[in-house]
């Protein structure tokens, strides 16, 4: 850990200015991921700009429908919020499936979205890692890849994004409100995180001084019966091997619309567009669900330790859709 400066921002503009003017600066939310990385020497910011106390700590209905979640809302509060539990249960379930009670009390909405991969080589400065040190090589290839990607990976990086919350948000078509040096803009959550390509050091499309101020959930009737299913190596306090966020609109035994996102399979929450397309107008049967899963997973490229993720994600999706139908 290197010595660093600590600032507490008073408003969004000031926070952005502080970080914008300082290449070694970065935002600090609850610190549950960033501070760990600093202790490990994985991240070495020279200045932390604390944004956890900015006035983005509420969950409120939006005038035109939908809900706005402030970026500083703790994960625990968000999971427990009545609006979320009633209208977007998938989000509440995803949050509660993540980390531990203590961590969720500290973790913020913004920080959760931007937490970095748990790839064991990324977190260990004694091993090469393209994400941590571009060009140094990818130790996961040929190494321990139980937690790694089967979809959308590149030669340079096979890491997965660890957030459960982000998977639910991607399924819900949430958008992120961003305040940057050039003003504010909106980015769909599904487009926030990148595939690694040959720039694995870039997790998202955000710039260094882009501050997340809120996440907006669209009004979505089918979300009231949405669900999150996480499969992991232990019953609690473990990252997903595979997770599924889904909502299903079925009328007269026919699927009108399906919304599906996978976690644990890729460098970003994986919106399963092919599976959704396959299901549109299909009968709500186990065979159709299986066909949809297989369509989505057709291009999976498993690694040495994670071939099981193909049948596991297929079965999990089928089981989730079976329950929703």
């Amino acid at each position, binding site marked *: *850990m*290197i*010595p660093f400066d600590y600032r507490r921002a008073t408003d969004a503009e000031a926070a952005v200015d502080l970080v914008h003017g300082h290449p070694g600066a970065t935002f600090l939310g609850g610190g549950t991921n960033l501070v760990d990385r600093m202790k490990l*020497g994985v991240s070495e910011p020279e200045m932390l700009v604390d944004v956890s106390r900015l006035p983005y700590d509420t969950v409120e209905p939006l005038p035109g429908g939908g809900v706005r979640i402030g970026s500083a809302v703790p994960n625990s509060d968000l999971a427990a919020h009545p609006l979320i539990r009633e209208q977007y249960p998938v989000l509440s379930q995803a949050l509660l499936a993540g980390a531990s009670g203590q961590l969720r009390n500290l973790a913020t909405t913004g920080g959760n979205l931007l937490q970095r991969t*748990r790839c*064991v*080589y990324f*977190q*260990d400065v*004694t*091993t090469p890692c393209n994400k941590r040190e571009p060009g140094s090589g990818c*130790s996961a290839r*040929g*190494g*321990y890849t*139980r937690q790694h990607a089967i979809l959308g990976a590149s030669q340079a990086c096979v890491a997965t994004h660890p957030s459960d919350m982000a998977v639910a948000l991607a399924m819900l078509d949430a958008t992120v409100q961003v305040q940057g040096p050039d003003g504010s803009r909106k980015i769909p959550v599904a487009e926030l995180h990148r595939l690694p390509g040959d720039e694995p050091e870039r997790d998202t499309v955000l710039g260094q001084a882009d501050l997340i101020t809120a996440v907006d959930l669209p009004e979505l009737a089918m979300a009231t019966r949405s669900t999150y299913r996480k*499969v*992991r*190596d*232990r*019953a*609690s*306090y*473990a*990252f997903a*091997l*595979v997770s599924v966020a889904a909502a299903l609109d079925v009328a007269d035994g026919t699927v009108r619309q399906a919304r599906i996102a996978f976690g644990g399979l890729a460098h970003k929450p994986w919106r399963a567009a092919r599976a959704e397309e396959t299901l549109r107008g299909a009968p709500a049967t186990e065979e159709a669900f299986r066909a949809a899963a297989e369509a989505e997973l057709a291009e999976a490229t498993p690694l040495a330790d994670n071939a*099981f993720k193909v*049948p*596991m994600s297929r*079965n*999990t999706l*089928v*089981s989730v859709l079976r329950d929703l139908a």
Partner: protein
Amino acid sequence: MTTAEESMLRANAIGTPLTRLDGTEKVTGTAPYAVEHPVDSPAHLHPLQAAIALGRATGIDTSAAEAEPGVLAVLTHANAPRLASTGNGELEILQSGEVGYRGQFLGGVIAETPEIARRAADLIRVHYERYEHDVELRADRDDLYKPEQVNPAFDTDTAQGDADGALASAAVTLDATYSTPMEHNNPMEPHATIACWTDGELTLHDSTQGVYWTQAAVAPLFELDQQQVRVISPHVGGGFGSKGIPHPNVVLAAMAARLVPGRPVKFPLTRQQMFSVVGYRTPTIQHVRLGADEQGRLSAITLDVVEQTAKVKEFAEQTAIPTRTMYAAPHRRTSHRLAALDTPVPTWMRAPGECPGMFGPEVAMDEMALACGLDPIEFRVRNEPETDPESGLPFSSRNLVACLREGARRFGWHDRDPRPGTRRHGEWLVGTGVAASTYPVFAMPGSQATIRATPDGRYAVRIGAVDIGTGTWTALTQIAADALEVSVGEVDLEIGSTTLPTASGAGGSSGINSWGSPIVAAARTLRARLDEHGGTVPAEGVEATEGMPDNPHTSQYAMHSFGAQFAEVWVNADTGEVSVPRLLGIFAAGRIINARTGRSQLLGGMTMGLSMALHEESVLDPRFGHVVNHDLAEYHIATNADVGSLEVDWLDEHDPYVNPMGSKGIGELGITGTAAAITNAAYHATGIRVRELPLHPDKFLR
């Protein structure tokens, strides 16, 4: 001469569920753990670890570290104290730039704050000459060797009759290979030390399972007399074997403190560091063969074990030991073979030998029962030996069958349908399984206790024992009270320091046996002396010191605890997730000194067994030579959510031969057999026989 029966202690406080005497201190955070001891102006150590698995540090550039404000000294092999050669390659660090395993200590930074020490350690640049390393354990290696003995001093191999011949002619046979992965002890309190040199003498506040064991290992390295090393350890936050004997962290702390004489140096390890320097359980590969007749009577049992040790120091896990005692068969063989690797040194981990050794063979017994068309309990009962199968000695007491029967009754085993994969609760496949537990009764020689009675009616009991969280403070007080025939409130126990009479460490579940016996002996002598004073305590007080009395029965009887564990396991038919809603353990372990802390020991053992069954696995990356999942986010230990109903009970077992307390030791018994019971239940649930731990979901995916 008094008979064994007559010398047994009358239980009064013993057996009651006395609450922990140190409980209030523990839950209010006032019980000091190693680095929490208040010391004046401490300095802080952060280690420098090798980033290669084999080779030599050809240059260590410490200039940037030394230039950091707040750095007091930088330690490397260039300025490290010379250590006497004691033949312990694990402890003899910093004597050259040689690297024998990745993560080995190459030095350290001593600074005013832990943050500065850590930062400065990051600034040290090491140049290496690398040699090709070898860290992969496989059963087909051609360089496996036979150690002279296995831990602590058992025969490496044993054989009786003609096992191969018996197998060739057996009506039913089984030939299967089981494996357990590398596992790390991971006590809650990290290994931690405060070292301080004053006037050429060394004081260590150390998180250890044995203050005298630490003293005995450290003193000769620094060419000190034993009494020149003082070790203090009143409370220890768990050890599970890895704090049994000191590891290089204690030596590094003592070396660092040498560079800042008079200043105490604090050195708590990080969790990541614990994965490379304080030991682990070796992975094991267990080849089991069983032969039986049509009635399910075993004619042959063989177990051939392959496991690893480190080139820097040998440790030979005694995995085949329980197989020598569990079941009768005229033809039998056990063996251990080791691969010496460029890895850190394996060590004791809760029930070394018995814990992995009750996995393969107890799953094999389940497979064999099915092959013989017998219920697994009935199969075990049929093969119950009358005397210890290999030594021929009678058992001082053996109640495995009673445990199996009582457990079966409580668990509701009688109407079990043996067919696998036939019960469902929604998407979950449901099964039940059983396995046996066993652990030997150990007592270590050499402990002494002093008891002093004073006219104020108090009894000061002093012994250099330790409490690693097991309840020693409480249980020894109960034993002393009963031996003195006074109430526990009249006893003042002192443990946890080498300023107290010499004692063995907490290991091999021997603590209560080894410390209780001299306490009982000293109490009896003291009471005789008090009788000489007409039953009153003279003004100057009365004192008695006794050592561990010889137990003539040790060579006449085979002494072991037994138990039976039952598991209900649910496996998700879609995802393969494994859950254990119910575990029951019934044990026969002699007299249980404290019903509350005793129960906790067995519950804890079974929980750790469940954790071993479902989760624990250290992943060593052969390219780098280190464990890559080296933190508690990635190395999974069971969480509360993984533990369902967990029930423990014991039979009232009377054994006058083991020691005057009638106690057998329970720290390790509970972890033996749990993983096999769960694995057997998972088979019963799914029809999928997993022979490699842990039972990760992907092993049950279809």
